[in-house]
C-alpha cells in the first residue's frame, strides 16, 4: 500500500460493501441536486480504499483501455465506444469525469461490463494506468492548457514518458505520430493525417512543440494540420514524424456539417463519413480507429461505428429551443478554440455569438489563454457578441482589442441572461452559436435541462 492509503477506521472493508456504500452516495448526490453524482461516489471510494480501483478494473473480463489527450479525449472515447458497443458491454466515463475519482465511479456503476473504456485527464494518466493495468493506451496530443493546473507542457510530456516506459510489453500503445512530443513516445501503432491539401499554410500563433524534442532546432513542417500537429522533420538531427500505421487520406471538409475521409488501417482501407465537422474530429476518429483496431475491432465495425457517431456532450451539440437551435461548442484552450473558430468560419461565420468565460479550477483560473486564441477570423462576420461568464469583462476586452467595435459587444456575466439575450437576437428558425468554457458549458446544460429542453447530462451520460 502507498503511504497515502487511508484505512477506514483501521478496518479493511470488503469491496462489495464499499461498492454498495459508494453507489448509495451517487444516488444521494443526485437527490440533493449536487449534480450528476459522477465523481462523488468515486471520491468516497478512493478515499476509503485507493486500491479498490485496481480491483474494480481487474474484474472486467476484457480488460480496460485508456484515452488521454489535451484536446478531443471525450470525443475520441465516445467514438471508440460507438465502435465497440456491438462487441462489448462497456464501462465508459462518458460524461467526462476523467480523474481517478471519475474512473472509480464509472467502474463502480458498471456492473456486468466487459471492457473498461476510460477517458483520462492528462495529469491523472500516470496514476490511472498504474492502477487499472490497461491492455491498450491511446495517446492523442499535448497542447498548452491550463498552465496554472498542469504546469508546463514539457512536464506533462515527461510524466507520460515515464508512465509509458513502465507499461508491460503486452500493453498496446497507440500514439498520435503528428504530435512531436507524443509521436516520440514508444508505441506499437502510430496514427496521423496524410493529406497536405487540407494543411494550413503556416503554424498558428500559439503553436506549441515547434522545436525538435531531441535537439531544439525549429521543425520544418511539410504539412501543419491542427496547431503543431502535422508532418514535421528536424533539419539538424533528422528527428521526424514516425511512419503511419493508421492514416486519414482524401479528406473532404463539408463546412459545419460533416467531414469524410479514407481511413487507412494496417490491413484495409475504408471510406468514412463522419457526421461531425472539422479536421480535429478527423484526428479524434483515427485515434478511435487505431485504438479499437488494437482491441480487435474489424475495419467494417470501425467504419460503421464512426458513421453512426453523433456529437459527444457539449462538443458540437445542437439543442432545439422552440423554433431556434443552440449550437454548443466547448472552448478550453488556444488549440481547441482555434479549430472551433476555423470550423465555424468554414461553415459561414456567424453574425451573433455568445461566448462564456469562467475561471473555476476546471476552466483554468488563468484566463490569459483567450489572448492566444485566433478569434479574429470571426470578427468580419460578427455584428454582435454577448460576452458572458465570471470573466465576461476580460473576454469583452479580448474582442475589443482584437478589433471588434465596442458598440457590438454586450457584457452579460449571468449565463442565463446571456442565453436569453442570444436567443432574443436569433431570428426564428435560426441557430445561436454558443462558445462556453467547461464550467460555463455545464451551467448552460443545467439551464437548458431545467427548462425541459434537454435531459440533464448525467442521464444522457448513463
Amino acid at each position: 500500500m502507498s503511504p497515502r492509503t487511508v484505512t477506514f477506521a483501521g478496518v479493511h472493508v470488503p469491496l462489495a460493501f464499499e461498492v454498495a456504500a459508494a453507489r448509495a452516495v451517487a444516488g444521494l448526490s443526485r437527490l440533493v441536486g449536487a449534480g450528476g453524482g459522477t465523481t462523488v461516489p468515486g471520491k468516497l471510494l478512493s478515499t476509503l480504499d485507493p486500491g479498490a480501483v485496481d480491483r474494480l478494473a481487474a474484474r472486467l473480463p476484457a480488460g480496460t483501455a485508456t484515452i488521454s489527450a489535451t484536446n478531443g479525449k471525450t470525443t475520441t472515447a465516445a467514438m471508440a465506444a460507438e465502435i465497440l458497443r456491438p462487441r462489448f458491454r462497456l464501462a465508459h466515463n462518458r460524461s467526462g469525469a476523467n480523474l481517478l475519482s471519475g474512473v472509480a465511479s464509472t467502474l463502480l456503476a458498471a456492473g456486468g461490463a466487459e471492457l473498461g473504456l476510460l477517458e483520462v485527464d492528462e495529469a491523472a494518466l500516470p496514476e490511472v494506468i498504474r492502477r487499472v493495468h490497461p491492455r491498450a493506451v491511446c495517446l492523442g496530443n499535448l497542447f498548452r492548457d491550463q498552465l496554472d493546473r498542469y504546469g508546463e507542457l514539457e512536464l506533462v510530456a515527461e510524466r507520460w514518458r515515464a508512465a509509458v516506459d513502465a507499461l508491460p510489453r503486452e500493453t498496446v500503445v497507440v500514439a498520435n505520430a503528428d504530435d512531436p512530443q507524443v509521436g516520440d513516445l514508444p508505441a506499437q501503432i502510430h496514427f496521423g493525417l496524410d493529406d497536405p491539401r487540407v494543411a494550413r499554410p503556416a503554424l498558428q500563433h500559439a503553436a506549441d512543440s515547434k522545436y525538435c524534442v531531441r535537439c531544439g532546432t525549429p521543425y520544418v513542417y511539410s504539412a501543419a494540420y491542427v496547431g503543431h500537429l502535422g508532418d514535421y522533420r528536424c533539419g539538424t538531427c533528422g528527428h521526424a514524424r514516425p511512419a503511419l500505421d493508421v492514416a486519414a487520406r482524401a479528406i473532404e471538409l463539408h463546412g459545419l456539417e460533416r467531414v469524410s475521409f479514407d481511413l487507412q488501417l494496417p490491413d484495409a482501407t475504408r471510406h468514412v463519413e463522419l457526421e461531425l465537422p472539422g479536421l480535429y474530429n478527423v484526428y479524434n476518429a483515427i485515434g478511435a480507429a487505431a485504438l479499437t483496431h488494437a482491441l480487435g475491432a474489424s475495419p467494417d465495425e470501425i467504419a460503421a461505428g464512426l458513421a453512426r457517431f453523433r456529437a459527444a456532450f457539449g462538443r458540437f451539440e445542437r439543442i432545439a429551443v422552440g423554433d431556434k437551435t443552440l449550437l454548443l461548442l466547448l472552448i478550453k484552450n488556444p488549440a481547441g478554440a482555434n479549430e472551433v473558430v476555423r470550423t465555424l468560419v468554414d461553415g459561414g461565420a456567424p453574425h451573433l455569438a455568445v461566448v462564456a468565460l469562467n475561471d473555476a479550477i476546471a476552466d483554468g483560473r488563468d484566463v490569459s489563454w483567450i489572448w492566444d486564441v485566433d478569434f479574429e477570423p470571426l470578427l468580419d462576420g460578427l455584428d454582435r457578441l454577448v460576452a458572458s461568464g465570471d470573466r465576461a469583462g476580460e473576454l469583452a476586452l479580448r474582442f475589443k482589442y482584437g478589433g471588434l467595435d465596442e458598440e457590438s459587444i454586450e457584457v452579460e456575466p449571468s449565463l442565463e441572461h446571456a442565453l436569453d439575450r442570444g436567443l432574443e437576437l436569433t431570428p426564428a428558425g435560426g441557430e445561436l452559436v454558443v462558445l462556453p468554457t467547461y464550467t460555463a458549458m455545464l451551467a448552460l446544460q443545467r439551464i437548458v435541462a431545467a427548462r425541459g429542453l434537454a435531459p440533464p447530462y448525467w442521464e444522457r451520460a448513463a
Partner: protein
Amino acid sequence: MNVRVAHLYPDYLNIYADRGNIAVLVKRAAWRGHDLEVTAIDMRGPIDPGAYDLYYLGGGQDREQLLVAPDFAAKADPLREAVDGGAAVLAVCGGYQLLGRGYRGFHGEDMPGVGLLPLETVAGDRRMIGDVLIDTEMGPLAGFENHAGRTHLDPGAEPLGRVVSGFGNDGESGFEGCRMGRVVGTYLHGPLLPRNPRFADWLLAQALAHRTGGEPPELAPLDDELESEAHAVSSARARTRGGTY
C-alpha cells in the same frame, strides 16, 4: 507620431498571451493618433540601439527560455545602449528573469541574463501560481503569476510594486517586479496591459518621450469602462485566492 516597438523572441517567449500586451499598445496608440510599428527580433536578429522606443520581452516555458537565453545575453551591450538612450522596456515573467544577471533553472541549468536589472533568480521547488494584486506608483496592477523562479532584488533596487495579494518576486519579501527608470520587469501576466490601462498608457508615454526626446506626454483619456470592470474582477480574485499554494 510613429512609435517603434521591438518584440523580442515572439516565437519563443509567448506563453502567457504576450500578444495581448502588444495589441493593447497598438490600439491605445492608434486611438491617440499614433502609429505603433512592431518589429519582431528573433534568434540572431541584431538590435540597433537607436531604432526602437520600446522593447518587449514575454514569458516562455523553461525549454524555450533556455533556448533564447544565450542569444539574448549576447545582445546585452546594444540593449544597454538603447536603455541608456532612454528607450523603455517591459519584460514579463521569463523575460523579466532574463533582464537580471541570470537564472538557475529547475534542473540546475544556469541561464545567463543581460544584467540590465540588479537582480538574480533561482528556481524553487514549488511554483507560485495565482491571481496577484500589487500597488505601484502607476496605481494598482492586477494580474496572474505562474513561476518557479524566486527573484531576489539587490539591496537598494526598486521593486515595481508592493504585493497586496499574491506571491510576488519570491513569496517572502513583499516585493513584485523591478523598475529602473523606464525599464520594468514583472511576473504579472494575464496579460498585464488590457486590465491595467493606466500602466499601459504610462508605458506608451515613456516610449513617446524617447521618440521625441522630450518629457512623457499627457495622453488623451479613453473610455476604459470595460478595462476597469476587468481590473475590478481580477483584483477581487487576487484578494480572495491569490498567494495560496
